[in-house]
């Protein structure tokens, strides 16, 4: 009997009570699943905490669902809309393109462009054959004729390539010339590499086109008995301007295109100008045909735009400055931004559903292992009711979605200070590319993954999940410890997500007197960052619960908020590095990387941000002198001694995993105080020192006082205030001893003060003190 596996996703991550949500489910080994709506309360099964807690919710969708195996098209490509079959050329033809292959020696055929049916062997194509050579082929069903270049293509080198076919004589010709300049390719002029190949042969027959074959760039049509049509022969690399002609172009005409001259209009069927349609605010998925038939092409699985083109010369660093130098569209055979599964069930949520973190729990068979799935989503009230909101870091969840640190990341074991602890689902996503990757992964061709989406199963945005690299609950399951604390303390709260803040700005935050965010609020769009700043400056009271806060800059399209773009650049800590000239987000045109690069350090917003990380072992905080200031002692009221949080589900302490520190030079407000601070972290904690551009001995925990979590407090204008914990482990300390501990005490002191209308206790005390001093004078 086949192993039962169930995976699913919802079309929305944030909904309101009464809204409709769709569930997409795929199952192996079973045709039914038991579904039940649940409210999630605690997600960490650690035996020192309360364990996993869910509340079953009555719902019309509860019961047995019919489920089936669903297939996912991986790989990025362009599909040309050609209803009149202008590209079904049965006679003479020229195909041409600028290309920059990243994996020519992958060992299987890659189609660059063509109208090719890989199952029935009909049509024509220009591609790279299994030996890494440029190849042109035509097929008539029974037979295929091939013409290959004399030498393999070099990886990461720009070429202009073409294939011409004279149907009258049967002569096929390949044209391959390097267009390498000082900047655009891996190698320079000093490398004695031969890029050129010109070969010719007479084919035995002409191509025959099937009526429904699509013209594709970076792939070709295929067919499978169970899944039907799909795209295979996926290409890894960049393609710049490309075209199709209905006559064999002469050598000198091809030389002229290679030299940058406009392609001839005579015989032109399509000419995709990959630099057209750019705007100052970003680039879409449509690739414009400037030829006579307007056969625009559309990207599938989001081919990467805004990449350097064949004529990039190093002077300009963004498509906004020189769009004509940014014609590169990058394709990856394992790109995946939407599973595109059929809808399994649509559900209108009850109007009375309280705000919270929910999941559709699905169980197949005995409901154990991969037979159990939680499709997580967040529910806001129709009208905000609570004075408190818990803000879930859905942008960060997206950035880390389905990361494969433990099995694929060379750097992860040294960074984590421990070997990984892998579970069944980690192995499942390592074996199966259909889950897609996150922005901490690289594509199989070596390039970093810059797009991530929640329209596919996100196996690590699930309760109970522990990140393999660090053997901890990470992001969402860790954040449930904060939600469980709010529940235990009896606070009336709503939930919010990053998506709400991105789409609605400060309006999403404004109704709440106090907002707590997550254990790891790392990724923010510009709009999200602005909303936070305006909320606090406008009198909002904000508790930054985690660390590595407000570090990274990401972008979303308004009409597709489920897809995040991230370009890793700047600073010296990143999972991968955007290539030179490719630092800007295609989604918005803004530079990617970390907010430090924009003079918007996290310290400017919440008083502290990233000091470093080390995992494996956490420390307690020690109270600092500011905690004894009579004006601030309300924060630590009820806490005895100097030590806070020498316990926790996050490696035994409240300060650790990733930690943030106060820094006036990076914009910590001058009135900020340090209530408590950690230190003495092990040497696998390494400082992320933005000032120290040089790495040197002494950057590690026992040598460097920078490596500490600071609990920071400051008052903002209009009775606003910020309390920042500076530690991912802080929230994971709350559940210890039935939520009765000094971390919990401290947080409740802050929340109670923050939700109370009127001046903050510190202001009131200071004002009182000032009036006494005035009288004394």
């Amino acid at each position, binding site marked *: 009997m086949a192993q039962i596996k169930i995976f699913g996703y919802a079309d929305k991550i944030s909904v309101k009570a009464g809204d409709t949500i769709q569930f997409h489910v795929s199952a192996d080994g079973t045709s039914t699943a038991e579904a039940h709506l649940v409210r999630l309360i605690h997600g960490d099964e650690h035996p020192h905490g309360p364990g996993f807690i869910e509340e079953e919710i009555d719902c019309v969708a509860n019961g047995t669902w019919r489920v089936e195996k669903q297939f996912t098209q991986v790989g990025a490509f362009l599909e040309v809309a050609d209803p009149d079959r202008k590209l079904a050329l049965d006679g003479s033809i020229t195909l041409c393109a600028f290309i920059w292959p990243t994996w020519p020696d992958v060992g299987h055929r890659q189609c660059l462009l063509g109208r090719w049916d890989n199952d029935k062997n009909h049509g024509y194509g220009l591609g790279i054959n299994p030996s890494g050579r440029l190849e042109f082929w035509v097929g008539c069903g029974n037979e295929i004729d091939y013409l290959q270049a004399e030498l393999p293509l070099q990886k990461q080198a720009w070429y202009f390539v073409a294939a011409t076919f004279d149907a009258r004589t049967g002569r096929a010709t390949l044209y391959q010339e390097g267009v390498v300049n000082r900047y655009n390719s891996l190698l320079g002029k000093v490398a004695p590499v031969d890029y050129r190949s010109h070969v010719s042969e007479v084919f035995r027959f002409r191509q025959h086109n099937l009526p429904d074959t699509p013209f594709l760039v970076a792939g070709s049509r295929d067919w499978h008995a169970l899944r039907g049509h799909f795209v295979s022969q996926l290409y890894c690399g960049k393609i710049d301007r490309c075209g199709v002609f209905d006559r064999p172009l002469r050598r000198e005409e091809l030389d002229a295109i290679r030299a940058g001259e406009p392609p001839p209009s005579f015989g032109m069927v399509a000419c995709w100008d990959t630099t057209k349609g750019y705007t100052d605010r970003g680039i879409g998925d449509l690739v414009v045909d400037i030829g006579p038939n307007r056969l625009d092409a559309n990207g599938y699985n989001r081919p990467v735009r805004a990449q350097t083109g064949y004529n990039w010369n190093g002077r300009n660093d963004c498509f906004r400055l020189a769009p004509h130098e940014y014609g590169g569209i990058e394709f990856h055979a394992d790109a995946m931004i939407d599973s595109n599964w059929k809808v399994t069930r649509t559900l209108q949520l009850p109007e009375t559903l309280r705000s919270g973190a929910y999941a559709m729990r699905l169980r197949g068979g005995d409901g154990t292992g991969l037979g159990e799935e939680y499709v997580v989503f967040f529910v806001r009230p129709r009208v905000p009711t609570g004075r408190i909101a818990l803000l879930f870091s859905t942008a960060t969840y997206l950035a880390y979605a389905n990361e494969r640190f433990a099995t*694929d990341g060379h750097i992860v074991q*040294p960074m984590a*200070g421990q*070997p990984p*602890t892998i579970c069944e689902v980690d192995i499942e996503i390592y*074996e199966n590319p259909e889950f897609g990757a996150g922005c901490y992964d690289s594509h199989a061709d070596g390039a970093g993954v810059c797009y991530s989406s929640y329209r596919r199963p996100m196996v690590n945005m699930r309760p109970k999940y*522990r990140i393999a690299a660090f053997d901890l609950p990470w992001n969402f399951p860790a954040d449930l410890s904060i939600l469980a604390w709010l529940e235990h303390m009896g606070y009336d709260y709503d939930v919010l997500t990053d998506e709400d803040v991105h789409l609605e700005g400060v309006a999403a935050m404004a109704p709440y007197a106090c907002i707590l965010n997550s254990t790891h609020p790392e990724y923010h769009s510009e709009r999200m960052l602005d909303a936070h700043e305006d909320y606090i400056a406008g009198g909002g009271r904000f508790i930054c619960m985690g660390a590595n806060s407000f570090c990274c800059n990401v972008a979303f399209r308004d009409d597709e908020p489920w897809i995040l773009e991230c370009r890793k650049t700047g600073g010296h800590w990143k999972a991968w590095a955007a290539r030179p000239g490719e630092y800007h987000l295609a989604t918005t045109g803004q530079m990617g990387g970390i907010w430090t690069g924009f003079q918007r350090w996290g310290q400017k917003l919440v008083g502290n941000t990233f000091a470093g990380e080390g995992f494996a*072992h956490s420390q307690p905080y020690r109270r600092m002198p500011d905690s004894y200031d009579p004006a601030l002692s309300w924060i630590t009221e009820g806490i005895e001694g100097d030590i806070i949080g020498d316990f926790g589900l996050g490696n035994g302490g409240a300060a650790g995993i990733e930690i943030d520190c106060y820094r006036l030079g990076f914009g910590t407000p001058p009135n900020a105080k340090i209530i408590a601070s950690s230190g003495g972290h092990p*040497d696998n904690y390494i400082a992320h020192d933005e000032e120290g551009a040089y790495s040197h001995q002494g950057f590690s925990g026992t040598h460097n006082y920078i490596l500490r979590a600071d609990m920071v407090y400051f008052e903002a204008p209009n009775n606003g205030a910020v309390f920042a914990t500076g530690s991912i482990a802080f929230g994971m300390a709350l559940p210890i001893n039935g939520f009765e501990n000094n971390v919990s005490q401290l947080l409740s002191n802050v929340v109670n003060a923050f939700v109370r209308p009127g001046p903050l206790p510190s202001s009131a005390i200071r004002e009182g003190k000032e009036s006494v001093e005035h009288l004394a004078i």
Partner: protein
Amino acid sequence: MLPLEYDRSQDRDIIVRDRFDTLRREFLRTIVTPEVIEEHRRSPLGQHSERLERLLIYFRQRPLDERYALRTVEPFGKYQVVRLSGHRGTPPRAVDETIYASANEALHGLFLHCIRDLLET
């Protein structure tokens, strides 16, 4: 010196890497003592002595297909030591049948595999 025939692959960096690795392993073998192994058994995570730390840093830097990991058989109850494949799509494989009753015991079992590899190859 390594003979010229040592490696004919295009990437000459491999030769330098292997020579460095040979020298590093020669030194690391000299610091494996019962005391270091006992120190790890007592506390597999956190701050360690310089000797143990050197060994652990080396083990964590091995090529992916030479690294070990734990596999959770039962959360917080049963663990196994596996070896990573280093090849996307190929799952890790168990190194033996031993089931450990805690993560710390399993981490130490994994450490002993690393020590054995260091001393025996």
